[in-house]
């Protein structure tokens, strides 16, 4: 079991760089040395690489206004720019901000910081499948509300949000909608025009692009102020010399993801469905997140009476890498807020396992994965003093 092929199932944490992207973008690390702000030929080549990437990213989210895409250093930075930059620029509209209760920490923490600066924050509840409650959104809106932040799909439980309905609702009240699409982009079609999204965050690495780039789409007319100040790059919204390699790579990664999305998502969906079916045959195992309306590469579970970090370590012995929302694997030692928001008790949230599939996975991996999960759950339950209700 120790020498079996390594099966990586933690694509939500970090993804490998697509070799085609590497081939395309490596020249920007060595051959093409230029600052896009310089007017000499090297600078112009760098500028054209950035603009080419901007067009490709714009196409991934279906906007013909490619200038509405601002490159940042990461998805975290895009989320910070979206939340902070919008909230501070539009104070005259009010100081009330809303977010779903299952947002990524890179949305929650800028909100917490704004709270210290006098903003009031409301967290909109989700149902047991992790879908935002639209009636709750409507109830929580006040005359001071200026922004709602909702992720397109959740990285821990895979549930996809009804973005179009949410945007119609908040726009009736003149409120901006920010959508963190880092987990969803390239997996399911995203259309900022059809869904009428005001701000949308993207991540390069979640598209098999290099780390070190992200992007924020800002609908023309939406007012945002910078969070970084300097030379005024990216329409003044993200100062700092552009990371050409990462940006060019992100563009190429976006182009490839878009081209292959339908086929690849369909392939992964099949693997996901078999995995879910097999794993749920284990005693006291449950799917977390939406049973059907979930990301095609995402399968997440919880198991009674065992703990997630132990699951992770035990699965690693089989050369299989998974993730967990367990408290014990987090820096804060708090269980995942997402699992608590869908109504799990602390002791239930401790036993979570998250599988995110990618290009390297195939249907052939499924028996190995399910065997390892079954053995892991059995071993840890044998070690556990906790007994399932109704007898082990």
């Amino acid at each position, binding site marked *: 079991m120790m020498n079996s092929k390594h099966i990586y199932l933690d694509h939500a944490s970090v993804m490998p760089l697509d070799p085609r992207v590497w081939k395309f973008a490596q020249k920007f690390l060595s051959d093409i040395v230029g600052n896009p702000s310089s007017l000499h030929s090297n600078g112009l080549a760098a500028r054209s690489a950035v603009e080419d990437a901007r067009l490709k990213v714009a196409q991934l989210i279906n906007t013909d206004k490619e200038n509405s895409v601002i490159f940042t250093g990461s998805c975290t930075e895009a989320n910070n720019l979206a939340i902070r930059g919008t909230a501070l620029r539009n104070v005259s509209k009010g100081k009330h901000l809303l977010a779903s209760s299952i947002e990524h920490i890179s949305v929650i923490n800028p909100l917490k910081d704004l709270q210290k600066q006098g903003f009031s924050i409301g967290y909109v509840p989700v149902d047991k499948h992790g879908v935002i409650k639209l009636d709750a959104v409507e109830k929580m809106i006040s005359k001071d509300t200026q922004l709602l932040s909702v992720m397109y799909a959740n990285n821990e439980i895979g549930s996809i949000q009804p973005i179009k309905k949410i945007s119609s609702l908040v726009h009736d009240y003149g409120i901006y909608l920010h959508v963190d699409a880092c987990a969803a982009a390239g997996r399911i079609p995203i259309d900022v025009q059809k869904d009428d999204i005001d701000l949308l965050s993207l991540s390069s690495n979640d598209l098999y692009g290099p780390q070190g780039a992200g992007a924020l789409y800002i609908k023309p007319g939406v007012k945002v102020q910078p969070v970084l100040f300097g030379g005024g790059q990216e329409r003044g919204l993200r100062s700092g010399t552009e990371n050409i390699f990462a940006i060019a790579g992100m563009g190429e990664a976006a182009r490839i993801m878009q081209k292959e999305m339908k086929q690849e998502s369909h392939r992964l969906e099949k693997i996901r469905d078999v995995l879910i079916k097999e794993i749920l045959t284990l005693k006291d195992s449950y799917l977390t997140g939406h049973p059907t309306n979930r990301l095609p590469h995402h399968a997440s579970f919880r198991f009674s009476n065992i703990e997630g970090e132990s699951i992770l370590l035990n699965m690693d012995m089989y050369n299989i890498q998974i993730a967990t929302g367990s408290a014990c694997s987090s820096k804060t030692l708090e269980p995942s807020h997402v699992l608590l928001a869908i109504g799990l008790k602390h002791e239930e949230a*401790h036993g979570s396992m998250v599988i995110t599939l990618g290009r390297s996975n195939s249907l052939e991996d499924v028996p190995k994965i399910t065997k390892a999960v079954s053995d892991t759950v059995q071993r840890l339950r044998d070690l556990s003093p906790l007994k399932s209700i109704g007898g082990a």
Partner: protein
Amino acid sequence: MANVGYSKKVMDHFVNPRNVGEIKQPDGYGKVGNPVCGDVMEIFIKVKDDIIEDIKFKTFGCGSAIATSSMVTELAKGKHVDEALKITRQDVADELDGLPSQKMHCSNLAADALKAAIEDYKKKK
């Protein structure tokens, strides 16, 4: 430097934990932790002439919770109960070549479980 991952010894005790199980009619039984917090440890001891002859554990928790439980049973086995009472959380961590700093308190309860088992034994005596 802060210890971020687990030592080889921790992983060894996680993969091959020693003295797993329960003792029927133990001379001492200790239980610490809470499923809400993510760690529960049970220790069972069999004692003869104040010497811990046999010791078993069951643990719900993370890698270090399991490894520290296993280690504490190894340290206590064969010891006089008064000697075993002196085993501290720090001793357990040291024997495992250290624990990640955030794990030192939350999942290093094994010494407390041992202490509870010995106190239970002394009460019954």
